[in-house]
């Protein structure tokens, strides 16, 4: 209990769930004009979509700040994360060919130059992999202890044909839900690394740009809604998709791909793989007639081998996600706050 009743920002606000949404809506959305955007700030989507004068195209803009502990982790680092995060947010709006990215660094005084160099090297490689040129940036240094080593903000712009964007609110009854690969890898791997658990097996982050994979999917059928299940995990993404589209979502838990290493480590840590971040996966709604074709296309991509249809949008239970556990049913709720390993 705090000494005063003054409301302060807590780490729970940053965990990507309902509390963060409330905060953003209260503090930001109410104060910023929406202008003429097709997808405005108020939509709280992965990015905004705005018409470009008389042209046929619409501009997609997104921005993301990245902090992660440890900064270098199994399967990636903060640099790869910063580029992938923004490329993926653009892709989630349908902009799979990023026009340009920015790179703003805030570095703690005392950080070895070599550390920054490694991060830059990784950003360069990932930007090349995604076909997303980094064209401008900024650097600030803060005092020792004022920030933990390094924080990176990346913004990105992309273009989609007018009306060709994919909102996260686009689900309608009957749409199938596809996840593009194994769930929980990034979150479980980082948590176990942070807690000092050394599990056997291939536990590593899935951080990667997924724009090419998304393009492949969009070419083979009608994708109605997309999200990359980062903070808050698949559980949060599905709840957001259901509530924004005012549909119910039924998920077959046994169909959700989870690697053996993640499942075991999740059990030991007491953490649900569905509640933790993925950094290289997509959950998308697909018109049911196209679902098999889109799934096949995704599976033919090296990043999508484990893709699966995991459920569908239904008329009942608007705004909620029902999980068939293979035993009984329950609601899948959004995780609250930080995911902490369970002890007893």
């Amino acid at each position, binding site marked *: 209990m705090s000494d005063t009743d003054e409301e302060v920002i807590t780490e729970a606000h940053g965990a990507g769930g309902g509390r963060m949404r409330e905060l953003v809506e209260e503090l930001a959305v109410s104060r910023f004009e929406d202008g003429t955007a097709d997808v405005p700030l108020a939509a709280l989507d992965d990015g905004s979509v705005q018409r470009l004068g008389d042209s046929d195209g619409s501009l997609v803009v997104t921005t993301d700040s990245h902090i992660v502990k440890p900064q270098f982790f199994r399967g990636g680092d903060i640099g790869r994360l910063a580029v992938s995060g923004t490329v993926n947010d653009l892709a989630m709006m349908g902009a799979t060919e990023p026009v340009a990215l920015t790179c703003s660094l805030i570095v703690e005084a005392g950080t070895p130059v070599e550390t920054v160099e490694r991060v830059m090297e990784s950003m360069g490689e990932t930007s090349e992999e995604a076909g997303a040129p980094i064209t401008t940036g900024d650097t600030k240094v803060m005092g020792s202890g004022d920030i933990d080593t390094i924080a990176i903000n990346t913004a990105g712009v992309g273009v989609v044909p007018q009306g060709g964007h994919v909102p996260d609110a686009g689900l309608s009854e009957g749409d199938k839900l596809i996840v593009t690969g194994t769930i929980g890898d990034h979150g479980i791997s980082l948590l176990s690394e942070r807690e000092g658990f050394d599990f056997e097996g291939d536990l590593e982050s899935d951080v990667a740009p997924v724009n090419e994979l998304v393009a492949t999917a969009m070419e083979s059928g009608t994708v109605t809604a997309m999200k990359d299940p980062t903070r808050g995990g698949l559980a949060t993404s599905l709840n957001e998709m259901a509530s924004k589209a005012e549909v119910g979502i039924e998920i077959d838990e046994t169909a959700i791909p989870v690697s053996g290493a993640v499942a075991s480590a999740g059990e030991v840590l007491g953490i649900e793989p569905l509640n933790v971040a993925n950094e290289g996966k997509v959950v998308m709604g697909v018109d049911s007639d196209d679902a098999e074709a889109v799934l096949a296309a995704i599976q033919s991509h090296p990043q999508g081998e484990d893709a699966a249809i995991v459920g569908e949008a239904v008329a009942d239970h608007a705004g*909620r996600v029902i999980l068939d556990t293979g035993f*009984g049913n329950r609601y899948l709720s959004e995780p609250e706050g930080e995911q902490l390993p369970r*002890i007893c």
Partner: protein
Amino acid sequence: MAVDTGNQDLQFRDPEKAEQLTDKLESLMDDIGEPVTIMHVCGSHEQAIAKYGLRSLLPDGLTIRMGPGCPVCVTDMPEVDEAVTLAEDGKIVATYGDMLRVPGTEKSLDDAKADGADVRVVYSASEAAEIAEDTDRDVVFFATGFETTAAPTAAVLADDPPENFSVLSAHKYVPPAMEIVAELPDTDVDGFLAAGHAATITGYGLFEEFVDEYETPAVVGGFEPIDILFGLARLLEFIRDDEPGLANAYQRCVTEEGNVPAKELMWDVFETTTGEWRGIAEVPDADLVISEEYSEYDAHERFEIDPDVGGADPLTEDCICGDIMAGTADPDECPLFGEECTPQNPVGACMVSSEGPCKIWLEYGGQPDI
């Protein structure tokens, strides 16, 4: 989840077997012909029930409720205050992560930590002792949990721990609490599903006396979905036959005598005393305190702990935690549940711990009306 592992033993998660067992539950309930309430006393049971949506499988009339099965939830406020006082007094306080957010009168250990106290999260008693080995400072292990964690605490104390190590015990002993719950006038329990992991230590034979005295059947159950459904079916058989029987439905881990060396060690190091179980009642012989023989490691003996706090429990005034832990109410019957009372901002102890019924219900979303 579609888990791609060959090495995990999945026979206790076989949906087909679950279907057979639910059919059996249904036919047993038909035979019984009246509503039945089963109580379990373990957060891990509630976890599994909620996670696998097992309540949605139960036939009409069969209710399963969690009793006082969360050691953290029932840890009383003065006990937390003592740990906070020690931490603020410059000792290193090591404890399980679950204890961090449990509110004391004025502060939780988490609050004390934010104010600069040295509070460390550990995964075991031995890890706490290891901290003591690496420092000259006093390290106090704020120990919590039932027999499953009390036995490892005992093992550390019996193994000649460093001199600067001591234990502030908030360990609890389950069986007396089951008796209290069975005696509560409003609690109407037809059978108990006893906690399998505590019984690995104590053995299932321990419950014989309870079954005889309260004429209520008890079955020791494991934690996989099939274990739980099997345990329920066994209980319904006892109820149908009007037989206050005792059965072990967790034979791969639990024996009649339990883990005898662990038990001996536990009763060397600990003895029982009467104490307040937060929100429930004063429970006789259900708090584990350090015995005379090991009193040199008892933080109560070593330090003068006089928390300058007191007053009403801020938790239980506004919430129905007591009713929930006594098995007379479900979490979603509480008006605060998920609204004013959340894991980030708990009003009641049942929302604090990951073993707490309210937190579990919130985490796993509850059960749809379908």
